[in-house]
């Protein structure tokens, strides 16, 4: 329509347009509103007709495409089998990783108790060494054994502490399960939305069925940042932002 307006008008078109506009001007001056409105309507009709023709063409195209799509058996295969199957597989991944993470955390909890026992045993060793040295004569060999016991105590304590540190790191490392779980749940939701939209599309294309394709729900939250997929703040960005806000 804008393209048509940019085209130069032919001489007869121009003469007809001038005649109409003059007629409308006269009607306006004479206070003949009805005649003016009639002129205005006639002036605009070709444009409205063009718009309606375009809408009708788009609608026909859409309808034809939808019909072609629904005739394609692959689509109903996706909707009826492959998409629910994909969701089940992803649910299974979430379940397995959650079980694995919990199993790891159970073992971490148990190992922490063991590490504490080792430390307690080390403390008792030191105590017993003290008591023994109080009752035996301080011969060179007794002093040498005592020194070895002190060294052993130190080794036990150092190792128990390192073990505790490793267990903390092991526990912390299970954080992946929450993040991957959240990401997978979002993908499951997306697949389900697409599935719903496709079912409605198939229904709309079916004989005698109305209805429109529902747009997928857009979740309000962005979820975990995935490198290369979405832009997100890291902890120092967040700290800087909060500092700006007076935190």
């Amino acid at each position, binding site marked *: 329509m804008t393209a048509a307006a940019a085209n130069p008008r032919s001489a007869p078109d121009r003469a007809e347009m001038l005649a109409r506009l003059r007629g409308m001007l006269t009607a306006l001056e004479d206070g003949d509103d009805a005649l003016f409105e009639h002129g205005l309507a006639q002036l605009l009709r070709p444009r409205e007709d063009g718009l309606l023709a375009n809408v009708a063409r788009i609608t026909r195209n859409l309808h034809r495409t939808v019909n072609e799509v629904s005739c394609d058996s692959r689509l109903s295969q996706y909707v009826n089998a492959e998409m629910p199957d994909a969701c089940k597989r992803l649910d299974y991944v979430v379940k397995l990783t959650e079980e694995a993470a919990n199993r790891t955390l159970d073992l971490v909890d148990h190992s922490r108790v063991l590490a504490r026992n080792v430390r307690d045993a080390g403390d008792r060793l030191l105590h017993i060494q003290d008591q023994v040295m109080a009752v035996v004569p301080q011969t060179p060999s007794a002093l040498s054994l005592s020194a070895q016991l002190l060294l052993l105590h130190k080794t036990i304590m150092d190792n128990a502490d390192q073990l505790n540190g490793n267990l*903390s790191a092991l526990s912390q490392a299970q954080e992946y*399960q*929450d993040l991957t779980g959240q990401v997978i749940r979002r993908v499951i939701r997306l697949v389900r939305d697409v599935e719903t939209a496709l079912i409605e599309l198939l229904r709309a294309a079916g004989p005698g069925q109305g209805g429109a394709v529902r747009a997928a729900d857009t979740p309000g939250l962005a979820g975990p*940042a995935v490198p290369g997929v979405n832009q997100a*703040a890291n*902890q120092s960005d967040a700290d800087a*932002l*909060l500092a700006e806000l007076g935190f």
Partner: protein
Amino acid sequence: MDKNMKILIVDDFSTMRRIVKNLLHDLGYTNTSEADDGKTAWPMLQGGGFEFVVTDWNMPGMTGIDLLKNIRQDPALAKLPVLMVTAEAQREQIIEAAKAGVNGYIIKPFTAVTLKEKLDKIFQRAAEAA
């Protein structure tokens, strides 16, 4: 800081609740309870006794941001410190949490050092305000 303070950990992933609990234990805070979303947490908080809340944002039932807003609107709980530990890392979200009155914001994945740093900062501010 009183290491025996009662802390509520709110997260829909049991793994994350356990990890936060373990980290808090490592830091000496052993008096922790858990809730799997805001809806479960709310009656627990109203029951009283909690002195600190660590919450996730994105949870079914009641989200962490709604829990935070409820806490700030409740005269008995309004001053309760709330630390948000979440995967939500968009600028708008951080600002929204700040406006809702969060005391600290940690983005997952996080480290024990970050947790300690934020806890210390919150307690330091609380001490200054007192």
